[in-house]
């Protein structure tokens, strides 16, 4: 099938005065349509079922996170990051904490690094299975979604075991974790690693060679690497075009350089490739988690944070019984800790691509400026221009494959 993106010029409607505008229909796709995967709107000019032009409108759930962050101590920014990409909130959490640790130049114990890797890869799996599951729903296949939803619950149970919450997790701390993984956590992770591969196999058997699925996705919304780079795409979308850019490999954080894994890439950059890349990434994630479990066994047990009492929030029982812990607790909660005047950019490989935190610190109790480089926001900017000339049904599948999370889009 030919590449449907022939020309991308600007965001302005392509209609001119000579066009018989009466024959075009304006279609509001969204803001709260099931196929828009969140609260955002596309005003499309339709010629029959074909999209002539479109304008994307976003910002419906904009919550001013960057502004709020300027008024909060570092710890209280963690819940804001959770709510960026709520499908994989631990990655956002860890990314923020690593940014602050980079600013404070805190060295992490290896065991903490591996624990973080496990959590981040589990989060990547939850994000990808939901994205691919919903892609199946949008092509008319519901059962795959039900299979994987069950697996997401299993991962949420692991989160729950660690920190008590499931969706917006708040697992991390500056300097490590709030608590150690107990035996039950490790047992649940191992059980998941055993039960998930056959489910994933079954899921992929449903779609990979399914004629309807292939015809709906193959060749649809194909993007070449140059165009993807022009629009600053990252993550599975960029990798589906054939470029193996992955922050975990390019700029390893949290000891990712010690892990053996591959970066799956596609060839056509179409919806089918994005689906395949995500599936393969889930397999690679499991590979990483298995290695991390092996590595953790070789590290001394019970170390779940760095020895930085001036930055690491002490546990409650210590606060009640230990004077120093009480003082540190007070200073940390009130944002009275000394931080260097500097600026730092730290990026992690989020489920949707490069998730960056640009922090400018003036030594005060809150960041002077905090900017989130949100992959969904940047990836979605191509949606309206790339939809031109596309059938509406293909545009729906395309939106599904972009995996735009409204919380990350708007922030």
């Amino acid at each position, binding site marked *: 099938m030919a590449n449907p993106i022939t020309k991308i010029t600007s965001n302005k409607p392509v209609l001119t005065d000579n066009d018989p505008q009466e024959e075009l229909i304006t279609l509001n796709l969204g803001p709260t349509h099931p196929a828009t995967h969140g609260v955002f709107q596309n005003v499309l000019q339709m010629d029959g079922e074909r999209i002539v032009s479109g304008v994307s409108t976003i*910002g419906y759930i904009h919550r001013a996170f960057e502004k709020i962050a300027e008024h909060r101590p570092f710890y209280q920014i963690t819940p804001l990051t959770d709510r960026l990409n709520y499908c994989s909130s631990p990655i956002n959490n860890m990314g923020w904490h690593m940014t602050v640790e980079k600013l404070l130049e805190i060295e992490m114990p290896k065991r903490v690094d591996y624990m973080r890797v496990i959590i981040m890869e589990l989060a990547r799996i939850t994000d990808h299975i939901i994205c691919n599951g919903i892609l199946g729903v949008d092509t008319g296949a519901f059962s795959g979604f039900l299979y994987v939803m069950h697996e997401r619950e299993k991962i949420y149970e692991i989160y729950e075991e660690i920190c008590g919450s499931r969706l917006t997790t708040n697992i991390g701390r500056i300097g490590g974790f709030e608590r150690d993984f107990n035996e039950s956590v490790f047992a649940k992770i191992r059980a998941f690693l055993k039960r998930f591969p056959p489910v994933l196999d079954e899921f992929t058997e449903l779609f990979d060679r399914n004629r309807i699925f292939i015809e709906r996705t193959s060749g649809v919304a194909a993007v070449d690497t140059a165009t993807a780079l022009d*629009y*600053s795409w990252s993550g599975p979308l960029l990798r589906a075009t054939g470029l193996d850019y992955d922050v975990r490999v390019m700029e390893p954080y949290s000891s990712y350089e010690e892990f053996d894994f591959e970066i799956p890439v596609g060839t056509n950059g179409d919806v089918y490739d994005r689906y395949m890349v995500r599936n393969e990434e889930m397999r690679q994630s499991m590979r990483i988690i298995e290695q991390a479990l092996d590595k953790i066994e070789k590290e001394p047990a019970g170390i779940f944070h760095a020895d930085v009492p001036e930055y690491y929030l002490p546990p409650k029982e210590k606060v009640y019984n230990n004077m120093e812990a009480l003082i540190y607790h007070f200073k940390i909660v009130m944002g009275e800790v000394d931080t260097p005047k500097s600026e*730092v950019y730290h990026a992690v490989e989020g489920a949707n691509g490069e998730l960056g935190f640009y922090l400018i610190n003036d030594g005060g109790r809150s960041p002077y400026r905090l*900017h989130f480089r949100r992959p969904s926001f940047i990836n979605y900017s191509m949606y309206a221009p790339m939809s031109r000339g596309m059938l509406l049904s293909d545009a729906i599948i395309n939106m599904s494959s972009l995996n735009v999370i409204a919380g990350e889009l*708007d922030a």
Partner: protein
Amino acid sequence: MSKLDNKVLFSRLQERFGDLISNETEPYGLLTVETQKANIIEVLEYLKKDEDLQFIYLTDITAVHYPEQELSIAVVYHLHSFVHNVRVRIKVYIDGQNPIIPSATLLWKGADWMERETYDFFGVRFQGHPNLQRILNVDDMDVFPMRKEYPLEDPNRVDKKDYFFGR
């Protein structure tokens, strides 16, 4: 390929632009330089198109407001060279009363939304942008909320009646 040394990169920039590139710092290993708005596009174009450097990836555009400075708005660009696996940060300080800077959309289409976001929050007008409208905030808003002159409400104020606000 091995990492491009920051010193080499800075000397390349100085060789090409001379004094127009200044204030070299390396916070946490990321080369940060300043330049002027008149030549920002030239600098970005050089970094992007130079065969050796190849900073082809525009990671991010944003701004920072320093109300106490004469040139009170800093527009910040992050670029990434995949070939050398090096990032660079470029800052341009512009007048906060009349914040105008050329648009980078001619070099990267991805700059479109990043610049709209920066305009929306800081009021930076990007000359040559094809569609410079607010993106996250409502269109009829007449302030640029990320500027420091719009502080958040004091959470401890007591003069406000909660029942007027549904609380």
